[in-house]
């Protein structure tokens, strides 16, 4: 079975081909083109979608080329139907619908967040993990129970990715700027006290963001360091709470912020204390990519027929805990 997956929820347009044999997936190709806003600015949905339109054909043909397959060999197609930016989502959906109707392939709308989780499970081999999903669109703690991913904790305002991006932008970086913030933070070890807000299993970052900005006027590195230390300590604490509450023996971290080394180190230490296995998605697949969408669609195809073209809409705010999972 050969699947094609298309991702276009935010700044990334990506196509990937995965081959499935006896239940195991192998990524044959995963090609990405990332929209970069000007320094100090965030994603402009219109500009990002224009970027996707302009690059979609090239990304698709390169993806087929690298996988050394023809589009006629592809058995099914999946696209990210949400959550994400409307104009960007529509680009992926249009590409997927066109291919599906022209080549008569079954088409699967996929929840982007579940894509992160499923690819993470495929790559790390985690069986029944507590999942920390940290990206620009999500900050959630999840565990699978009774056919659905259930939310054990989440952010009540902005996400961890947004915290790092918005802070980075205020320093003049272009988003996504988690790496720039991380780099600057590594040059300091001077902690400035910032608001620490954990409410049960939930976190809130907006106060932290406002409080960190004035610190940056005095010393940018100290501000980055203190921001990361505070935010990551909050996340790690909720992870510890959820680990001891759910008694899961694995923690899997997925999403763009999973690439941050400091966060991984803190989570790794927390897992050690709870004797849990720490599964981090390989950095190359932590961010948004077509493989996530492709693999999730292939899992769904085991129990579901493809969607009717009329049902292949996009849903900008499609929460993952509303998706029933039957595979």
């Amino acid at each position: 079975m050969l699947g094609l997956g298309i991702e276009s929820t935010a700044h990334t347009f990506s196509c990937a081909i995965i081959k499935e044999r006896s239940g195991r997936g192998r990524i044959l190709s995963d090609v990405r083109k990332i929209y970069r806003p000007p320094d100090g600015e965030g994603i402009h949905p219109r500009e990002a979608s224009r970027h996707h339109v302009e690059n979609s054909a090239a990304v698709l043909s390169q993806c087929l080329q690298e996988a050394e397959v023809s589009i006629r060999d592809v058995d099914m197609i999946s696209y990210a139907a949400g959550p994400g930016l409307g104009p960007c989502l529509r680009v992926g959906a249009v590409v997927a619908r066109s291919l599906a109707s022209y080549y008569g392939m079954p088409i699967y709308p996929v929840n982007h967040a579940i894509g992160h989780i499923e690819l993470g499970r495929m790559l790390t081999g985690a069986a029944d993990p507590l999942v920390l999903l940290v990206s620009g669109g999500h900050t959630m703690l999840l565990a699978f129970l009774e056919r659905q991913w259930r939310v054990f904790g989440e952010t009540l305002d902005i996400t961890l990715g947004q915290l790092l991006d918005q802070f980075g932008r205020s320093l003049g970086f272009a988003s996504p700027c988690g790496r720039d913030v991380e780099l600057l933070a590594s040059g300091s070890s001077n902690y400035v006290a910032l608001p620490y807000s954990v409410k049960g299993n939930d976190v809130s970052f907006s106060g932290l963001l406002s409080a960190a900005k004035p610190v940056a006027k005095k010393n940018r590195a100290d501000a980055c360091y203190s921001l990361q230390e505070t935010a990551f300590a909050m996340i790690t604490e909720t992870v510890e709470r959820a680990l001891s509450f759910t008694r899961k023996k694995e923690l899997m971290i997925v999403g763009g912020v999973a690439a941050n080394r400091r966060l991984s180190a803190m989570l790794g230490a927390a897992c050690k204390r709870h004797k849990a296995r720490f599964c981090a998605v390989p950095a190359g697949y932590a961010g948004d990519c077509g493989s996530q969408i492709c693999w999730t669609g292939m899992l769904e195809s085991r129990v579901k027929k493809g969607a009717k073209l009329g049902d292949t809409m996009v849903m900008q705010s499609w929460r993952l805990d509303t998706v029933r999972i039957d595979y």
Partner: protein
Amino acid sequence: MKLVQRGAEADIYRTRWLGSEAILKVRKPKKYRNSSLDSQIRRQRTIKESQMLSHAKSLGIPAPLVYFVDVAKSSITMQRIPGRPVHDLSGSRIIRLSRTMGRLAGIMHKNGIMHGDLTTSNFVLSGDSVFVIDFGLSQNSPRQEDHAVDLRLIKEILNSAHAAVMKQAWRNFVSGYRSAVGSTACSQILHLVSEIEGRGRYATVI
């Protein structure tokens, strides 16, 4: 001393205090945290927890009695409550006990205590009584918003960890809660709960 549980933020040991069975709750330094942030959190929570435990007890909430507090070591010695956390009980008992849990939450809120970590693991069934434990995140707060945060957490927990009994358990919890705070306050707070839920990402925005 025997380690009984490695909780989220503290280690729990069994010990004795002047002849009574006791537990020792130690918030050990977490090396992964920046050390000044770490000591600040541990110190604050130890002090707060012991204060709030005593406060809750004075209101008649079944809670462990505080025997001794060592701020330098971030440790609290307190009465041991034998029994099982509600989390581990059968679905039907969780449904039945939800009313009591709701009533206890209501009494705390009516008296300005926000528990801060209202989960089924922090209610312990001991004999016939339900005890409230772990006041590490609790605060003095008369604000309805804070009380709603408490309710939202227990609702989230029922919905995630006890999905099969969620509906009935939540209904009983609310009815117990209402019996303590009165129906006006109860509906105001429930309204705030749905407001907070709406703040979650992608929560039905329509």
